[in-house]
């Protein structure tokens, strides 16, 4: 018998299509239901904060090809409250106020995309500007309110959840050493290669809406409500999606309004955004200011840790506003055994693009804070940063462990992860090389950064997923999943799992996803949940399907069910010891059509419920060269040891790690969304927004480690975000480490040449 396919480097099934004929992304979609579709372009506010006095459509409606120009008033749009703070409401097109540059103000529908864009430029919104609030702390203190009804620019605070306020200075009274820091975890843009596109068509009274999304089923309620429909009247279809990174979890006004616009003009409509629009109107991530205090003993033991987080929600109370309380706070203790911890998080609205979940979503922020604090504590007591970590790591645990902040982790073996990463990096030799470089007086210095992290995956409701497997009469099969691949390779993974159990070859298995008529219920793909919940559901469905097929095979082969075995190499069922007496999946699928026990044919649907989240962990070592004269940082090595539990496909695992490390490094070194003091975005194209490229990255060194979780039968934890979480603090730490001998203790991200240069200058003064 051939061995298990699981755990092998199986090439991605979807790649031949993506690499040759190409995926079908939304704006390329040809569908007869979109015949005669017209284009929607949105008029966007060019003012960050202001009161709309009038919107002049007269010139726009005269433009060539224009079919209609719509505002909140003409569409009679209702106020929609935020899911997280009902006092904060907005209309999908701005009515009384605009709150960020890029906010949709009006919609133009025209025959062609170009005509719609040209006409949109002819809509004039008369806006009386109000002072723009760009800075989180300034917004918090200001009585210039974005939402009067909320009574404050603070829109979410952990104290409102009944959690305690942070105490005063006495919290650290017993500490020999106390170090404080103010860390910027800057705002970044997710930059999926495919920017947003959507389409809508009314077919026989039903709304068909195409979305480039991570969660079609999650968009249903919003689309149903916006169009005043019954649930049965909406179908959402997801074509191939070119990346999301969290920003495509939610549904945006530009997409939500398409059904209404299609109805108004009596034609199907399509929408696509430019990169510049995407940089302004697709949600941003991170955006925290963290005040961190760490205290402990001179021997390296950390006993107290406090964090006050100010989370920038941007101009609406979207998912970004709840990541600090529900993701950053629970992970505050990180991998450390710190007996006393207090955390308060405060989310604030500002006149900037609303923030949403972005790869890691709250956990990178927690990790970055803890790792920076550990580094500064180590520097203060003059101990090696890796050594301080060793003193404070939670010892290996294979039973649940609960931290002082109240979060329970499943399994952890942090010190081994750190050792593996440091060993692979040659940590001791690197320190020798660093010392030699320092002694040589070379302006280009070496820095070494170590980070150890734990994160939470699959931790958001629903903590389960459905799967259905249908065997067709030709012996092929379809898997229906509620997850939503947009680069991860679910077609490959889910086929591997199903093939392992059923013996149906991978290439005879098709994946169905993202279509709410075909998969009405699903949790989508986010929070690194897919394999551990969606994959586990496929595994369960396949096992149960085999059981059903076995009873059918027994009938067919006129044998006792207990004697029927499935040969997963051939995919045939036969009588034990008599391989010649066998039947195939195709035979069974045909037989099922006339068997009363199989009213839907040979198909099985099931649901896997996880008993909880999983907590992937790992350690990263980054090595950088810093030119102390220009401030330029070169990331020269990156070692990543990420423990995601049992590995289904190392190739896919490494792909996730590589992408994650690249994005995490990008935050440490390059990327930052910035606004001028009037709230105008100054980084709304990829020349000014320094999205990372291969030219800035080393070849990654991946070190494997597997500590299976008991939470699911696959033993799998999430890997989608680990790379992002582990790499950022390692790289940032390496930059600071390269400058440590010059007296530098901290450089805020992104550690651009200019910031590095200024930090050196400041330290030498």
């Amino acid at each position, binding site marked *: 018998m051939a061995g298990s396919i699981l755990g092998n480097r199986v090439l991605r099934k979807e790649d031949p299509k993506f690499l040759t004929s190409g995926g079908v992304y939304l704006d390329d979609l040809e569908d007869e239901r979109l015949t005669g579709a017209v284009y929607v372009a949105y008029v966007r506010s060019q003012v960050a904060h202001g009161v709309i006095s009038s919107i002049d459509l007269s010139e726009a409606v005269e433009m060539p090809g224009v079919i209609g120009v719509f505002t909140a008033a003409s569409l009679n749009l209702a106020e929609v409250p935020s899911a997280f703070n009902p006092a904060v409401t907005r209309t999908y097109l701005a009515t009384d106020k605009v709150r960020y540059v890029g906010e949709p103000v009006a919609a133009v529908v025209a025959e062609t995309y170009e005509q719609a864009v040209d006409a949109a430029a002819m809509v004039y919104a008369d806006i009386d500007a109000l002072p723009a609030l760009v800075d989180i702390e300034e917004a918090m203190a200001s009585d210039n309110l974005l939402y009067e009804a909320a009574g404050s620019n603070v829109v979410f605070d952990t104290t409102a959840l009944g959690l305690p306020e942070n105490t005063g200075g006495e919290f650290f009274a017993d500490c020999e050493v106390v170090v404080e820091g103010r860390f910027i975890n800057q705002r970044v843009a997710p930059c999926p290669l495919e920017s947003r596109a959507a389409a809508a068509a009314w077919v026989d009274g039903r709304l068909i809406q195409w979305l480039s999304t991570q969660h079609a089923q999650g968009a249903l309620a919003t689309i149903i409500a916006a169009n005043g429909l019954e649930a049965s009247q909406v179908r959402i279809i997801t074509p191939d999606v070119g990346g999301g990174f969290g920003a495509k979890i939610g549904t945006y006004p530009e997409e939500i309004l398409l059904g209404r616009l299609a109805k108004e003009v009596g034609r199907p409509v399509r929408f696509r955004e430019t990169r510049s629009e995407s940089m302004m109107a697709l949600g941003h991530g991170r955006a925290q200011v963290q005040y961190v205090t760490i205290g402990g003993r001179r021997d390296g033991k950390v006993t107290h840790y406090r964090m006050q987080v100010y989370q920038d929600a941007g101009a609406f109370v979207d998912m970004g506003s709840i990541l600090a309380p529900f993701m950053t706070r629970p992970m505050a203790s990180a991998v450390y055994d710190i007996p006393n911890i207090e955390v308060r998080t405060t989310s604030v609205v500002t006149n900037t693009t609303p923030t949403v979940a972005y790869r890691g979503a709250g956990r990178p922020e927690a990790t970055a804070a803890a790792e920076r604090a550990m580094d500064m504590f180590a520097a203060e007591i003059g101990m090696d940063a890796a050594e301080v970590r060793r003193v404070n790591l939670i010892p290996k645990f294979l039973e649940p462990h609960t931290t002082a902040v109240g979060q329970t982790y499943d399994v952890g073996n942090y010190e081994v992860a750190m050792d593996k990463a440091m060993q692979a990096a040659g940590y001791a030799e690197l320190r020798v090389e660093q010392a030699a470089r320092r002694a040589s007086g070379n302006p280009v210095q070496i820095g070494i950064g170590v980070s150890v992290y734990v994160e939470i995956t699959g931790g958001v409701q629903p903590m389960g997923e459905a799967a259905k497997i249908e065997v067709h009469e030709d012996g092929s099969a379809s898997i229906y999943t509620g997850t939503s691949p947009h680069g991860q390779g679910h077609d490959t993974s889910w086929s591997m799992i199903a093939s392992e159990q059923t013996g149906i070859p991978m290439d005879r298995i098709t994946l169905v996803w993202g279509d709410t008529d075909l998969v009405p219920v699903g949790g989508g793909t986010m929070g690194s949940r897919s394999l551990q919940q969606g994959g586990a559901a496929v595994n369960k469905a396949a096992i149960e399907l085999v059981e059903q097929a076995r009873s059918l095979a027994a009938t067919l082969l006129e044998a006792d069910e207990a004697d029927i075995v499935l040969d997963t190499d051939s995919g045939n069922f036969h009588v034990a010891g008599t391989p010649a007496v066998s039947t195939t999946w195709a035979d069974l699928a045909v037989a099922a059509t006339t068997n009363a026990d199989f009213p839907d044919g040979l198909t099985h649907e099931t649901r896997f419920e996880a008993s909880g989240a999983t907590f992937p962990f790992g350690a990263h070592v980054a090595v950088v060269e810093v030119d102390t004269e220009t401030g*330029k940082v070169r990331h020269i090595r990156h070692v990543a040891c990420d423990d995601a539990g049992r590995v289904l496909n190392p190739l896919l695992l490494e792909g996730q790690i590589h992408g994650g490390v690249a994005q995490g490094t990008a935050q440490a070194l390059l990327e930052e969304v910035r606004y001028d003091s009037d709230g105008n975005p100054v980084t709304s194209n990829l020349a000014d927004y320094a999205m990372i490229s291969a030219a800035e990255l080393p070849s990654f060194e991946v070190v494997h480690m597997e500590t299976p979780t008991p939470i699911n039968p696959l033993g799998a934890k999430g890997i989608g975000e680990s790379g992002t979480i582990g790499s950022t603090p390692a790289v940032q730490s390496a930059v600071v480490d390269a400058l440590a001998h010059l007296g530098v203790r901290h450089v805020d991200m992104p550690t651009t040449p200019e910031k590095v240069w200024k930090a050196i200058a400041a330290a030498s003064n």
Partner: protein
Amino acid sequence: MSVIIAFSMDEALRALAAHPDALILSGGTDLLVEINEGHRRLGSSSADIATSPTVLAVDRLSELRSWTIDLERSQVHIGAGVTWSELVSEPLAGLIPALAEASRTVGSPQIRNAGTLGGNLGTCSPAGDGLPVLAALEAVVHLRSATHQRDLPVAEFMVGVKRTARLPGELITGVTLPIINGWQGYSKVGVRNAMVIATASTALVADRTKRQIRVALGSVGPTVLRCSEAETMLSAAVDWENGGVGSDQLREFGGLVAAASRPIDDHRSSAAYRRHSVGVMAQRLARRAFPLESGPPGQGKSSGI
């Protein structure tokens, strides 16, 4: 909008005589961005034709797309339509290495395949990567109209931020550059390693025949700047025979280069960092030109490397 595609120099010049304000289109990597961003409107309906500018495409003119080497006069003529990709290839790269070095930093392969030296001059952005090299090499820009032809030193051609001495009706036909006996190089600072607009840049030429150092700076002034004080100082300080210079002299040189810059604060960088970085780049380029550590001229001391 009307588009005229010229297939010969004659056609192009006649079209320019008829439409002196025509938008000249070469690789389009600047012009189309400006159009897309609405800095230039072309009008979208036939009714606009009367008022909207004419576009004149010159990318098919072989005179613009070619280059010639004149070894006798030690110079190279490069047509305005020569692309960055051609400039990074031999033999041009070997003859004008600083221009090749600058060209390699421009955009991406796609941009280098389409974008041209003439377009870089036409735009005349302070961040144009070709321009400091042309300035340090004291290139001559050739302009031609239906009625006349004239040559301008590149320093006179570049007038200000995106402003040139080109007159309506004139076409940039190319530039002439000297083949230098000596070292030349280009250095650039930007937010990342590829696809990046210069935050600050420096070109340095060490002309052994004339015993002259020439330095030009990008992105630190309204247009490319030369650094005459620094040039004079270093020309006198280096050991031309052995290729050496003292570290103290280098530092002084760097300081003078920084002082010659006139940078501004913007969203890409502070003025202070720009000023600092051109000083560092100039020192490093000079060290590459004069690798030996040596004292002031006459002493001929070497570092013993």
